[in-house]
């Protein structure tokens, strides 16, 4: 029975694929270098995270050198966004949306620092520096301990305070007929 259902599934998958053979045959397969260069997107399950690790202490130094001029010495914000605080404010009249209070996934922090920061030199930081900066910002928000080291394994296990704070778009059930 098990073998039989596998065959059925295999056939079900194979038929549409056979119908999808290329029509135009433009372009070429990407080179390994092209795929590697594009491989910076990090999934919320941690897929794509590179090797390396960073401690809170190392992150304090990275942050002071690369982040604090815009985000303030302790992530309190400036030209750049406020990175710290705001937990418990989302229901208030003045919610403070930060990494700690709002961001649902720690992997997003890694991905965004790696691709977009520092603002004037995106992509500058090496993987261990990104891990370290992430560790420091998470520690500032009370999400990890002072002595913790962040790597691919530990990062994907972190449950952010607002992980369950999002719901899918409920429209178009939202009010439209009120005048």
């Amino acid at each position, binding site marked *: 029975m098990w073998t039989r259902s596998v065959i059925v599934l295999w056939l079900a*998958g194979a038929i*549409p*694929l056979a119908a*999808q*053979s*290329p*029509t*135009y*045959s*433009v*372009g*070429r*397969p*990407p*080179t390994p270098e*092209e*795929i590697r260069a*594009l491989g*910076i*997107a*990090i*999934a*919320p*399950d941690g897929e794509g995270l590179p090797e390396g690790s960073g401690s809170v202490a190392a992150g304090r130094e990275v942050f002071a050198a690369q982040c604090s001029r815009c985000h303030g010495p302790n992530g309190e914000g400036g*030209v750049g966004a406020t990175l710290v605080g705001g937990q418990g404010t*989302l*229901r208030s*009249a003045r*919610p403070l*949306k930060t*990494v700690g209070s*709002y*961001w*649902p*996934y720690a*992997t*997003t922090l890694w*991905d*965004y620092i790696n*691709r*977009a920061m520092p*603002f004037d030199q*995106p*992509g500058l930081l090496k993987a261990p520096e990104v891990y370290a900066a992430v560790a420091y910002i998470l520690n500032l928000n009370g999400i990890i301990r002072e002595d913790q080291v962040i790597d691919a394994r530990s990062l994907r296990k972190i449950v952010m305070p607002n992980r369950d*704070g*999002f*719901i*899918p*778009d*409920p*429209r*178009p059930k*939202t*009010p*439209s*007929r*009120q*005048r």
Partner: protein
Amino acid sequence: MGAAAGAGLLVPSRDAFALDTPGKLGTPLGPYGERSPFEKAVRWRRESQTPETGSSFTPLQDSVGTVTPSSLHYERHHSGIPTIDPSQHRLIIHGMVDRPLSLSIEEIRRLPSVTRTLVLECGGNSGSEWADKTGVDVQRSYGLVSGSEWTGIPLSLLLAEVGVRPAASWVIAEGADACRMERSIPLPKAMNDSLLAFGQNGEAIRPAQGYPLRLINPGWEGNTNVKWLHSLKLTNQAYMARDETAKYTELMPDGKAWMFTYEMDAKSVITFPSGGQTLPRRGPYELTGLAWSGRGRIERVEVTIDGGRTWENAHLQEPRLPIALTRFRLPWRFDGREATIASRATDETGYVQPTREALIAARGRNSNYHFNGIKFWNVRADGTVTNVDA
């Protein structure tokens, strides 16, 4: 003289026009056009210490018709406008596909193309209107919307070429700007009507709009229309990018936030007369504005001149294309009495543009994005026009 005057009824005299001097030649033909030096409409943006990120707003108050000149199309950049040599640019489709593909722009342009006239609106357009003090003019309050003719190839065509694996359900789109901005696009949208656009308004897309290649997701918030597109990765999950979690999500009063709010709801605004303008004298005017919906055609636009007590159908410019700017017009006579004017759009799904008060009642004031409420302008007795705060 008498004969000349008589002839003047049939043949206009040169002297009847404000030409400098008879016989003065104009400027020579040129290779690339400029607008009249008397036309001054420009985009507006906030002063910033980081001018590479931010928004510039289309001068809707000066708009006519339904196409936004590419040079006045609103902008939203996150790390500046890259300079990209199209001969060096490639689109790579990879991830959960049978045949990963690397394509040059030249190769993409050899494929069967389509052209669509579409509205494009920033998810954050009219964010000013959630506050007590609303936007003072139509440019700064509703100007993150523009209309263009886009030319490109259906994304579905290339997805068939690469052979999407059955387990794939999302497409992660990434741009080649400095911050490599990314968004997760559900596969059904990509298979349905997404375009890989290389043309805008009859020419190559402008650098500020994504040259040489832009993902166009008809009816969806501007941020998903990834500019400078260089990567499409097929995956089985959304990647929870910064711009679909920390940003472009709407925080509700109960502390929960909406995410993946892609479609832009029906919306309209009067562009003339609007805040900051002045009617120079009493008499006849054409009241006009723009309406659009991310869900289809505009079916009706009603206009009030008495603060919302009574509404009258405006004339809609044809053709009314789905997910496109629709111009509405209504003849109106300014008789020197104060008038409070507004427009209200209904799209083909039956959705009616809500009031600002209804939106705030439903969503609070902290959702930032997707404001589509009715905008009132006050025409004062002296002809000046201002915004109206509740």
